[in-house]
């Protein structure tokens, strides 16, 4: 099923791509009028201390002798872009095989690609690189930092395609039954310690691509049967299936609802959120643009999703689905120092990104760079 070449211990990659550890960034403090923690709460007039690339403390007074940046606006965690292929192009998709469940997308990460700067300018500090949609099991997604050009976590989650996009008319599988037969076989034959085996044990999250509700129902059933955790990705509408999805424990990741998205899609995010289902948005910046993520969030907000819920979907919710909520997604002590300073509320499209911090470094300053990227 898989060529040995593509099997590669993932951890080696991280070292190779990350390069030598950079000098520890300066310790500094940000005092902001509004701090959007990312989990739905907002703190007023709060100091956030960054030290050694991490958030050292939230609240209290600024430590003496440390540079304090006054933020006349809003502070939020860096946004997390689930499902993206910026800079990878056709390298995301091994089009000769429908199932390559162990390939790691960290291999397709081009840290020097100029398009990354666009994402950073839109406040995106963490990206989940995933294989293209046309595969049944295209590989494991890698979490990367576009601002630092580093792989944060290779082999972070298993990407499965269970929508009509993964079906062909001229290649097996041509049917949902065939697709699940292949998936079922791949899971039952997965070697110990392989991504699929770890997904089965619940230690590696999955992102299962589904578009139609009927596909979601099949995916929910499959996930239940194999004990999978993670999220459904790309669902267009959830009405009528909310109960089943909520019972499955899976999250739902919506594609960027562009201009003219249907009302049922826009309403679905709210329905799921109200039912307690974790929601997030994909970025797909390579095809839809770096601003699509915020545009999507704003469109859902206009359709009734709360502003903080939308921000949560782009930060803490996304981190949970990607399995990195221990280190990413909220402004809390111990988390990586990935922050965005906004001129207004983060989910308001009229707000501008003023500063971006990644790994404790000040990687983008709108004024200093005259609207251009920092890197």
């Amino acid at each position, binding site marked *: 099923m898989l060529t040995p070449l593509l099997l590669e211990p993932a951890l080696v990659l991280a070292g190779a791509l990350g390069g030598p550890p950079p000098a520890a960034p300066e310790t500094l403090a940000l005092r902001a009028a509004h701090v959007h923690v990312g989990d739905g709460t907002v703190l007023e007039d709060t100091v956030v201390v960054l030290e050694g690339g991490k958030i050292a403390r939230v609240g209290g007074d600024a430590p003496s002798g440390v540079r304090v940046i006054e933020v006349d606006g809003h502070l939020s965690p860096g946004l997390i872009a689930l499902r993206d292929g910026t800079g990878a192009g*056709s390298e995301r*998709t091994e*089009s000769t095989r429908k199932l390559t469940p162990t390939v790691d997308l960290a291999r397709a990460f081009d840290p020097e690609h100029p*398009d990354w700067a*666009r994402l950073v300018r839109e406040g995106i500090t963490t990206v989940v690189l995933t294989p*293209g949609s*046309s595969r049944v099991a295209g590989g494991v997604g890698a979490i990367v930092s576009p601002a630092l050009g580093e792989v944060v976590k290779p082999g972070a989650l298993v990407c499965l395609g269970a929508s009509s996009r993964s079906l*062909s008319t*001229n*290649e097996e599988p041509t049917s949902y039954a065939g697709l699940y037969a292949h998936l079922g076989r791949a899971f039952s034959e997965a070697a110990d310690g392989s991504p699929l085996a770890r997904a089965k044990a619940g230690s590696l999250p999955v992102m299962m691509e589904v578009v139609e509700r009927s596909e979601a129902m099949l995916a929910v059933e499959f996930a239940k049967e194999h004990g999978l955790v993670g999220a459904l990705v790309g669902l267009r509408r959830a009405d009528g299936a909310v109960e089943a999805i909520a019972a499955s424990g899976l999250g739902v990741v919506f594609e*960027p609802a*562009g*201009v*003219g*998205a*249907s*009302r049922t899609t826009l309403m679905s995010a709210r329905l799921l959120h109200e039912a307690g289902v974790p929601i997030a948005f994909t970025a797909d910046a390579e*095809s*839809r*643009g*770096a*601003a*699509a993520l*915020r*545009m999507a*969030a*704003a*469109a859902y*907000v*206009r359709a009734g999703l709360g*502003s903080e819920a939308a921000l949560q979907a782009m930060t803490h919710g996304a981190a949970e689905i990607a399995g990195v909520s221990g280190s990413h997604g909220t402004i809390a002590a111990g988390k990586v120092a990935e922050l965005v300073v906004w001129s207004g*509320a983060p*989910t*308001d*499209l*009229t*707000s*501008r990104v003023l500063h971006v911090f990644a790994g404790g470094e000040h990687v983008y300053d709108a004024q200093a760079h005259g*609207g*251009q990227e920092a890197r």
Partner: protein
Amino acid sequence: MRSKTLGPRRHTARRTPLLHAQAPLTRAAGLALLAAGVLGQTAWAQDSEAPGSEAPAAASAAEEPQALAIRAARVVLRPGQVLENATVVVEGRRITAIGADVEVPEGARVLEGDVVCAGFIDPWSVAGLDANSARATSSEAFARAADAVDPYSQEHVLDELVRAGVLATRSIVGARAPFGGLSVFLRTADAQPLLDESALHTAVGVGGGFSQQRSFDGSLTFGFSEVDPLQRLAQIDKIADQLRAGAKYGADRVEYELELAEWQKEIADKEEELQDDFKKAKKDRDKKVKKAEDDGKEFKEKKYKEARRPREPRFDPEKAVFARVVNGELPLVVRADRALEIRDILKQTAEFDRLRLVVAGGRSALACARDLVARDVPVIVTPSASAKSTGDSLNRGLGLAGDLHAAGIEVLIGSGGSSALASRDLPLLAALAVGHGLDADAALHAITRGPAQVFDLGADVGTLRRGRAAELIVLSGNPLSSSTRVLFAVSNGEVVHSDAD
């Protein structure tokens, strides 16, 4: 929800320009009353007189809708001009008063919100039109979008637009045609044209064939093939040629009218002369009876008339449209993105000093900023998340609207007609532009006052002022904020959407 009573009126009062709405509406009401009488349901008419009752459509159209008093913390008269804690009074489908201490008419419905502003206007839309006409890849300059208005199949779409506060659109047919035709300025709440013929829409770089491509993963994608650069310049030449032909046609018509008038005068003079001669001859009956009869024959047969009648130029609907465009009667919208093409359009149309040019798209318009400012050409921008900025003046990405505005160009924001529903997201597009550099007031202007002025409805919609049509929205916050809700939409003086529903 939009008032259900709007539906039936569409049958009777379709395509009624706003300014002349009264007469047909009265006729509609008459018909409805007649119908009510026939059905023995005169109660309809009586019910409708009771205040606050759900009156049937046509019956209520005869009367004025219930007066409205709209109170808000901020009333945006026009972008940048705000009244604090003021009330807007609407009576008889018009704004009758705005101010802090205005008298609320008796029986008025009171609406409250944080902000009141003019309804949003999408200057580049396909909403409200039959989908096939909107998508057409070939069309004629004289095709009228007003004839493609399809209120029935588009009802749910228009409803969503109203809920989003988009109360008017300039909708075009032939979105993928080089000559799209005459766009219609449409009121979304009831699919009534505010202006039947609001501009001539043309496009450069479209009309290529349908192509299919195989992408890297083996799936087939379909799309329109790109039109090559030479063809694009040829399309501009064609527009310019048509303008010249239109100018000549217009001149010919004017000349004809003059000649016709001259000829008619000549005839009248001659007839008078003959009449005199004839009378004189009759007096001298004995002597000259034969000659007078001969002269009289000529007078009766009127042979002399037709031979010298000036020839009317052959009617050409296309040239007639371009003649109006050249005259400045209709704005000319040209969809063009590349700087080279925009420059070429400006150059080729420089000779027509009354032409009112509007550029749509204008992705690299910044490179032609000086000329656009000099010629006073507005640009309709469609902010798109996928727009990539390469940092040079040819490609500003999402910064385009802000940069054009800063360069002194009048910026309008339109949804670009990618789909009918796209117009619903007009406020989001404007917000996106603000988030990437456009001044907030300029963004609001770009979707309210700007489109109204550029497309000839500035005296009626787009701003809040005494005497203007009551096309306004009541919001829970800043007009462009993503979290703002449209609490009420008022169109044609009636509450057509209420968030409380």
